[in-house]
């Protein structure tokens, strides 16, 4: 039942676009179902009072990790291009993008 699902098909389409996916109607529908179920489960977090809690985005406690401004060896052009068949004159080649 579409009404009970957390996500609408439009929302799923929007997410797919942001994620650079081209999904078929079948896939959209499948993901709508599965993602909605997962999101419903995730709702339990709302029960937790986090009003005075700080976020943890890093667990190492490290700070100020830097590198020196020094030139190191780069890959060769051949190595850089070695994993694509779409190349031309040392460049990667893609379908035209209108600027």
């Amino acid at each position, binding site marked *: 039942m579409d009404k009970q699902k957390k996500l609408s098909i439009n929302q799923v389409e929007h997410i797919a676009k942001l994620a*650079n996916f081209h999904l078929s109607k079948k896939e959209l529908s499948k993901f709508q179902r599965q993602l909605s179920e997962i999101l419903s489960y995730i709702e339990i977090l709302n029960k937790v009072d986090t009003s005075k809690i700080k976020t943890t985005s890093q667990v190492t406690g490290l700070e100020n990790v830097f590198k*020196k401004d020094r030139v190191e060896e780069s890959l060769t052009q051949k190595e*850089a291009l070695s994993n694509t068949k779409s190349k031309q004159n040392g460049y990667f080649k893609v379908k035209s993008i209108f600027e």
Partner: protein
Amino acid sequence: MTYLPIIGIEVHIELKTKSKMFCGCEAKHFRIKPNTHTCPVCLGLPGALPVPNRKAIEWCCLIGLTLNCRVNNESKFDRKNYFYPDLPKGYQISQYDMPFCSNGFIEITTEEKNKTIGVTRVHMEEDTGKLIHIKDTTLVDFNRSGVPLVEIVSEPNINSSQEAVAYLKKIQQIVRSLDVSNCDMEKGSMRCEVNISLKAEKDKGLPKYKVEIKNINSFKFVKKAIDYEIRRQTEILKKGELPIQETRGYSEKTSRTFSQRSKEEAYDYRYFPEPDIPPVKIFNTEINQWKKGLPELPDDKKERFIKIYGLKESEAGILIADERKVKYFEQLIKLNLKPDQYRELATMIVNKRVNIDKFSPTSLVDHIKKQRVSKIGDKNILEKLVAEVLLKNKKAVSEYNAGKHEVLGFLLGQIMKKSNGRANIQMAKNILIEKLKQPA
């Protein structure tokens, strides 16, 4: 109905560090063979991780300090997620809510009016690769990917194209004085994006739309693009419509802006803190060290030239706008000449009466000295010179005697020419007048 242009400018400055922002590849990318300054990190290969360049961060903070910003004690990097072929990781490492510097300002001058433009923030990010469009293909070169960029965001309190250009020129001047970037619009080491909307007089608050103009590569075109946009948006508003919120480019050919809707408007970048880079803490002791080590800024230099060397405001202004001229003048200062000589030298440099590429500061001073010392002040020699000139220019003499006294200038000129500029003008003039009084 008058409309006030509300303009905000984002400037991107390419730092001239030796290596890139998050890896050890050489940062140089101008006229380098494609994809030869890349590595797993800046190529976005699977498994690669970023490590921030300390010098780049320091230079970002220096720029912030020169723009009167506060350098924040705590900052971090964030991921800005979007897809584009020149963005190898599918996200750009940038800064979102905790930039290195914030809340600054600079003073600009337009038509003798001073104005303060706010600088909202100065932060670090990495550059993307370069796209080259040929017929129906697009080629990608990642040499530029990962080069350190400092982004300077102004408050939207710029209200004209002149102010916009003055702002940009000032930023360029300041950043160049730090020697952290070549800051060259034509070569792309300084880029700007102009956000412009128009506010009706009666409206309170900012306009409900914003047009972004990108890819303008000279100050001249910035002015033209803004002027065009003001006209374009005024026409739309007059019709009672709202200009579309979009990104536009500028065409040098047509001197107009045009819509570039290939990118999404109001894209959702899904910023979140960069988990691969620990946060950055900058202590006040370090900030104070940086403050102490800052070079003299253009405005302070100008003040100094005016106060100590008596330069005219306008000349001082022109001098500081040209790095080469300033350096030259500073070298002249080291020669400890008499104060009033500096005023004269400044005028010579500003009026381009001396070729500073040909003459080194010391040789220039010598040359001028020679000219003065070797001025012919000997009365006898001068009298001989004057006599020779009068002999050769009998027509002019008759004209003078007939009342055409302006001929005197011509005759003086001839004397100067004959003496290779060495004649003492005042003495020569006196002798000339005397001689002209005498009968031939």
